[in-house]
């Protein structure tokens, strides 16, 4: 069996907005029946780039972009309360909202845990990503959003084929489901979404950065992370447990150990630490 899916590698997404534009180019102003009526010119985002600025200090800021589209769930929540088979799953796994049968069924929009279904007020129908099923049926090799991704952040293919590019991509990367879809089997698979980081910089007296300093983070549960400062005296630990408190110790031979505590409730730059020589 073929089960079409899209792997979304957030580590490679540069937020170029090509997927967003290609989706609109394909779906705005044109009906693609039987899978979709035209998307309105503006206001719907079948693939949306959710961006988060990570960090609380200009010394360490990163931006996370999570391309978010219908996840094409194996057992779609939105189908549960959609009479007349308004939401159905095709043999290839693509979840479709039938534009005819779904007329007037606004509850389908609210049912989606990820907010990727939109209400078309003019047509009175719920609308969402179709994985460009109308094009795949015509022999296109991939949906429009995937075709235009210059960063190979979107990979399309058959999830049931172990040898497919998408399957290999998923095996080689960390699967990180969207929070709202934890435990739900989906055909859109998000990869490499980080949790939370703590970072800092270590200095020596007399305007020098401290290179090769041992930095240890210990969670209340006893989990230990170790790193060393780089050529800028910077250290960073990514993918910590969110909300956990960490004891941080900064060690360099001949200097007083610096002890800090930080709560990883959000991405944080814990500050600049100045080492003082041990007396």
């Amino acid at each position, binding site marked *: 069996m073929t089960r079409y899916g899209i792997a979304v590698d957030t580590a490679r997404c540069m937020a170029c907005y090509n997927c*967003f534009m290609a989706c609109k180019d394909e779906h705005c102003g044109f009906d693609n029946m039987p899978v979709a009526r035209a998307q309105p010119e503006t206001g719907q985002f079948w693939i949306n780039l959710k961006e988060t*600025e990570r960090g609380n200090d*200009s010394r360490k800021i990163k931006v996370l972009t999570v391309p978010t589209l219908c996840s094409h769930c194996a057992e779609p929540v939105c189908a549960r309360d959609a009479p007349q088979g308004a939401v159905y799953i095709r043999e290839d796994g693509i979840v479709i909202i039938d534009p005819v049968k779904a007329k007037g069924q606004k509850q389908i929009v609210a049912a989606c845990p990820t907010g990727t279904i939109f209400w078309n007020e003019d047509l009175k129908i719920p609308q969402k990503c179709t994985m460009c099923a109308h094009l795949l049926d015509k022999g296109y090799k991939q949906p429009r959003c995937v075709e*235009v991704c210059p960063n*190979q952040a979107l990979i399309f293919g058959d999830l049931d084929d172990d040898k497919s590019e998408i399957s290999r991509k998923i095996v080689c990367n960390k699967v990180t489901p969207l929070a709202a879809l934890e435990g739900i089997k989906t055909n859109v698979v998000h990869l490499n979404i980080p949790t939370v980081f703590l970072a800092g910089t270590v200095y020596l007296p007399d305007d020098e950065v401290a290179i090769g300093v041992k930095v240890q983070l210990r969670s209340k549960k006893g989990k230990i992370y170790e790193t060393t400062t780089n*050529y800028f*005296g910077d250290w960073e630990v990514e993918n910590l447990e969110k909300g956990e408190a960490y004891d941080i110790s900064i060690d360099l031979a001949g200097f007083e150990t610096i002890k800090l505590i930080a709560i990883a409730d959000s991405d944080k730059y814990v500050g600049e630490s100045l080492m003082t020589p041990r007396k």
Partner: protein
Amino acid sequence: MTEKITHSIDVGGPITVHVIDGKIRRIRPLVLDDTDPKGWVIRARGKEFTPPRNTTVTLAALNERVRAYAYDRIKYPMIREDFVETEDGKDRNTQNRGKSGYRRATWEEALNLVARETKRIQGKYGKEAVTAITSSHHSWGLVGYKLSTFKRFFNLLGYTQIWDNPDSWEGFHWGATHTYGYYWRLGGPEPFDLLEDALKNVETMILWSHDPDTTRGGYAANESAIWRHWLKELGVQFIYIDPFHNFSSVKNGDKWFAPRPGTDAALAEAIAYVWLTEETYDKEYIKKHAHRFNEWADLILGKGIDHTPRTPKWAEALTGIKAADIKALARRWASTKTMGGSGMRGGFGGVCRTAGGCDFSRLMVQLFAMQGMGKPGSNIWTGTTGAPMDYNFWFGGYSDPKASIANEPVADKTAVNPVKQKLYRLNLPDAILNGHYEWLGEGFCGQSLEQQFTENIYPLPGCSKVHMFYRYGGTFLGTMLDTNKWVRMYQSGELEFVVNQDIFFHGEARFADVILPACTNLERTDIGEFSNSGNGGYQSHSQTGNNWQVMVYQEKAIEPLWESHSDYWIFSRLAEKLGFGQEYTEGRDEEGWCKRFWEKSDLCKKISWEDFKKKGYYIAGVPENWQRHFGFRWFAEGYSCDTPNHKPFMEQGKLGTDTGKFEFVSESILRLSPNDEARTPMAYYKDSWEGHRSLIARKFPFHLISPHPRFDYHTHYNSSCKWLWEIPENRKVLQGNPYIIARIHPIKAAEKGIKDGDLMLLFNDRGSVLTVARVTNRVQVNTIHCYGSSAIYNPTRPGGFEMEKGGCVNLLVPGQLIGTRVPGMAPNSCMLDVKKYEGELTFGQGFESILKKIDRED
């Protein structure tokens, strides 16, 4: 239902256009087939790198369908409703330009009026009384682009030409050329095969005033995006220096430094100080290749005339970057193989467009020289150009004189402009308004260093001033300086007649007496090469920013919409009315000209005209055993220069400076411009004439930086494409108007009582612009970041100080040039203040009503 597939190119890459029943249905990238050549292979660090078998696009390309049918297309010829065709050219209500509405005209009426006025003005004052200019990059194609169709017409007519300034790379053009030559590349470095060099050797990338994922090698789509992923996977460290934590930096940056705008030269000097004191520069290389290095080194060490050692601590006070961090940066640079530079191709970037742009650009070159520039893994290269390419294959890019319908061999006869008088774009309004202007240089000075000092005067003795202005394609209100003065120029009676030929009703079109509707790229036939700016001039081989070298037959996808016509059609008709129709066309239609480009280039040896038209594109492959020609390696290693686009003296191992070496004390500046306050013989940090140490900073404490935009291109897209307005980092729509995003640091936002998403007014003595605040740690604390070249231009009152609400920050930037002898623009030396805006908002954009009225007449 019939589906037709054609091809085209724009600034966002080559595209495949699907047309169903005469309507554009979709825009796709080009997908290669089995008959296209194999991709190049680079073997480096135990891996093989080869590009994917498709070309990339940018969001601009994916907007071409909606742009073609956009609400702000100019649909019909139009004449300003209060324009009066007086016999003496006076009393034409010119003060109302920019305010008045229009009435619909027929093509015959509009063209006859343009022809009558051209004849009247040239008959009365002389040929030079007509002037004309194009914008850059409003279309793509060797027939239709500005240096072809437009140039042929105006050269045959005779007109006062307006020289362009090197607007994107000023400091490298006017400054760096005096340090390392390359004036024929307009100050830019050699990119040749440096992608391979980097993949093999580089350890650190220093991207200084550079956002590669945004400027994308100019117009090389997203071709190089994959290269930077490769480099990251190899463990290469990316360090970004920019007052804005830009879109590349927040994704793949390992370190971000945010110098206070205008102080980059001080940071460069402090890096040199560390290398000099720690003796970590390439002494042998400098001994062999540098001229008067010791004098400059003395200056850095505090033994020079100002007795100021350029210590990291000294630079910390200016830049705001910690001395410890500056030392660490200098040491990382010196101890690892480092490549980098500024802006989209290494010699660009926002910093070179500041008052200190020449100093910064020269110091950038000097720093790379100190680390043995040209040795493996050590070069000016910014990760956006330098893919393998077959340099023996020639097609021709837009700036190449041999690739224009104005010139032989494409034309049977070259069209020559008989008028010697010139104008200079940056100061066109000053020249018109004051009736007199003097300046140095010939715009793009690719012939020699001396050319930068050509003395010019307007009006040229014996010549008339200009009284007719013919404006073509796009708008300068969002790309030039202090642009309210352009409005004052338009409203002056000195310009008796103004024509605008454009596709969209963007800023400047609204100031014309007659508007002629041109069609888009997709509605006419053309031919062109992806990202080729011209192998004869400009920064040659810019198409090495691509993975594939692609020539496209830009077949007309649909008929021109409404009553628009191609630029060639318009100029042909006008030429006929002015009596030189046959000379203009030489009997060819657009396809006939396209065929000439095929015939006069190497393309005709590779593919027949019929096959090329049928397939729509041709890809020139790189032969499998193709020998590499690494940029600048010839100089570092002392062999005869083997890179393309080189001068004979390079074969003797010399650079294009007076001495043939890196000049740390510039002999050409001493020789040609000894009393130049902005371009001293030695490059060093100077306070900006508008900066944090100026008196004006007490009134206007923030720096504005307005770099090249991520979500637009030369203002051509934001107005017409509403999908762009839905990008939260670009715009926010309030009351039917898309307000531009401006970024402010949280500390300053708190001081001003501004929250994220609030309306924020940017203002100074030149004007005011209403924006939406993005409160972010991504911007240097004293800096406001707002993209330039992405304005829509929606003034409350054209030319007034009242707020503009289309994001036209160019109203705010100073008109002052880099120096009295350096005619470059410096929009990033701009001070202003901000305040939270709590007043009323007017609904809509303001200009739509003019178009709607015309539609109602329909």
